[in-house]
């Protein structure tokens, strides 16, 4: 049973309890027409019928209604119609907004009028009708208000469903289908039920309107120019909505419509709801007020989608630059390899020469090859020099941002959990002061650095891998500790010496590429690092300088 249904049934049971209690009060308060015990006995069939129909809807709800009125009329039959008995008679009418099932409403008032007629000694009076009418109107207003919020709730639910299932890039338009369904099932006014056929969202971008997404594929559109200008120049977007603007979508006239405008942090969005058969400006306001908060939510979702798209674009642009660098390196390799033909052949010919197997003509060829080799050598060296000297490195960690320890912690944990089952960590910092400080680092550089180290940790460590976060007055210290296999001690000590020394970098450039990358990233981020070896424990210690956090609340 859904929560909604459970709530309704609970209210229904509660209401019957009120009827019974009120009924008991009336039995004791007024002179009774029948013997007292008849009234108490009447509770039994009343409850019996109710209990058998409470969990069903449809026809059963009519049975419950008739059941209520039979009981009520029985209880107050023969008694004067005073404020108490009148209230008792009105209970079903007052409670009607809580009832499930809406076909009951006519029946409810008919039963009510008929009941008064019965109790009024079968005399009809127009006051019955006036009273009924008054209650009907009040109930109608309450009912409409409930329906209004129910509709907003349904529309919000569509967005929730969508967010749960479909928040995929470039698919936010899928939420429109759900919304169209809800809109087309709203029974607000009996005589005004327009058919919603399309929802289209436009973005205002630098004084132009461009299409953002839509429930149908749109290849062409024209919108009234005056309207566009008005929206672009509008200062206050709070209650901006329009009806029946001149609009053509895919060469089809879609001028039966209404427009809603939303402002997010960075953009303005226009939502167009296209109606099929008719569109009345006045009655559209009901739908417009329903959709105001909904379109605001969708704007936010689109905004997030766009942020993600932009991030992706930035990443791809970055990657592209690096890709071209790699391509150039490959091309250079290809060129170099071709040049080796000359060298290879020259070496081979030299063997003949040394063995005295060359005559005059051979020596001429040999000499030509030597010239070519010399030229190749020059070309090769130029190319090699160009690659090594290139300042257009594919990667640089010099762009620094301010990040809190939270960020460092999160980044390290994320990478760690890619390699290990659990995050073994020791935290020895004052967590209350974490937001007071930031450290300067480059997030890409940090990622590569940590990834490299942890990957190696996973490969070469024997056991007891742990990350320790600690601090001094001026620095955050992060150390990676683990136990290594004793037979690797020589390599580990060499690693330590290579890493810690500043004098071996030129040699490292030829030999140990991985360490050099780590060292150069640390250098570019101005983070100091040192490796310590104690027994068979190796520890990499990184020190990040603390900076005052300008954005902190401290």
């Amino acid at each position: 049973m859904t929560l909604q249904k459970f709530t309704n049934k609970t209210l229904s049971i509660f209401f019957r309890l009120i009827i019974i209690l009120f009924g008991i009060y009336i039995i004791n308060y007024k002179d009774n027409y029948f013997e007292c015990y008849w009234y108490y006995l009447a509770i039994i069939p009343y409850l019996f019928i109710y209990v058998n129909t409470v969990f069903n809807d449809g026809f059963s709800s009519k049975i419950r209604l008739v059941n209520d009125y039979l009981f009520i009329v029985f209880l107050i039959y023969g008694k004067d119609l005073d404020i108490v008995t009148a209230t008792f008679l009105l209970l079903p009418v007052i409670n009607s907004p809580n009832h499930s099932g809406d076909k009951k409403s006519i029946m409810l008032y008919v039963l009510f009028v008929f009941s008064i007629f019965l109790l009024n000694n079968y005399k009809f009076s127009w006051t019955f009708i006036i009273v009924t009418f008054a209650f009907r109107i009040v109930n109608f207003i309450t009912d409409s208000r409930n329906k209004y919020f129910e509709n907003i709730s349904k529309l919000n639910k569509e967005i929730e469903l969508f967010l749960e299932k479909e928040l995929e890039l470039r698919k936010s338009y899928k939420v429109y289908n759900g919304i169209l369904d809800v809109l087309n099932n709203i029974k607000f006014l009996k005589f005004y039920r327009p058919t919603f056929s399309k929802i289209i969202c436009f973005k205002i971008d630098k004084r132009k309107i461009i299409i953002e997404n839509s429930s149908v594929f749109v290849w062409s559109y024209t919108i009234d120019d005056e309207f566009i200008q008005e929206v672009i120049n509008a200062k206050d977007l709070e209650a901006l909505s329009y009806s029946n603007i001149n609009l053509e979508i895919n060469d089809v006239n879609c001028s039966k419509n209404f427009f809603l405008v939303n402002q997010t942090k960075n953009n303005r969005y226009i939502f167009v709801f296209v109606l099929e058969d008719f569109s009345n400006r006045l009655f559209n306001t009901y739908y417009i007020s329903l959709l105001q908060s909904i379109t605001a939510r969708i704007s936010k979702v689109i905004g997030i989608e766009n942020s993600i798209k932009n991030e992706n674009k930035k990443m791809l642009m970055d990657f592209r630059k690096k890709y071209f660098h790699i391509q150039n390196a490959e091309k250079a390799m290809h060129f170099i390899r071709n040049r080796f033909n000359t060298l290879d052949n020259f070496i081979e010919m030299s063997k003949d020469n040394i063995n005295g197997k060359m005559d005059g003509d051979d020596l001429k060829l040999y000499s030509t090859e030597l010239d070519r080799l010399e030229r190749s050598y020059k070309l090769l060296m130029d190319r090699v020099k160009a690659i090594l000297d290139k300042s257009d490195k594919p990667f640089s960690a010099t762009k620094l941002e301010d990040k809190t320890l939270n960020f460092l912690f999160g980044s390290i944990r994320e990478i760690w959990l890619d390699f290990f089952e659990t995050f073994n960590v020791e935290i020895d910092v004052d967590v209350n002061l974490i937001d007071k400080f930031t450290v300067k680092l480059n997030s890409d550089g940090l990622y590569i650095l940590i990834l490299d180290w942890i990957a190696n940790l996973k490969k070469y460590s024997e056991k007891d891998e742990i990350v320790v976060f600690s601090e001094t007055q001026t620095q955050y210290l992060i150390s990676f500790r683990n136990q290594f296999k004793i037979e690797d001690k020589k390599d580990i000590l060499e690693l330590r010496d290579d890493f810690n020394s500043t004098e071996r970098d030129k040699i490292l450039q030829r030999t140990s590429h991985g360490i050099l990358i780590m060292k150069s990233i640390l250098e570019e981020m101005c983070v100091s690092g040192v490796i310590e070896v104690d027994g068979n424990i190796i520890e990499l210690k990184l020190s990040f300088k603390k900076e005052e956090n300008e954005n902190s609340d401290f």
Partner: protein
Amino acid sequence: MKIAIFENEYDTVEIAFKYLNKKYFNYSLKLENYPSSDSFPDLKKLQDYSLIIIDLDLSSQSSLDGFGLIKKIEKTLVEPIKILILTGQALSDKYDVENGLNKKYPVLEKPINYNKLNNQFEKLGIKYIG
């Protein structure tokens, strides 16, 4: 014997071929260099050659690369002809299938010298008949 060599950086291998020609073939080879697939327009004439040597990366000016050229030759020539592939990187075992060739051809990986060329020539049955 006519040998067609499709190679766009011929100066890197020219001496190798010339020395090969002198040392093992007594100048009997007629070596012809074509830097691109377009420099030999009528492929039917290749039927007259004893061997076609094709470098897989022909120049960017060429409308066909090495594999493209081989495919076209396979389609154009009636009688099968000897082809030797020159390449700078190792080819996979299924390179013929992957590139739409009718069959596999002998492959010589660069860098090359005159002795490596001679070994391949021998395998292909191209010998000096004095």
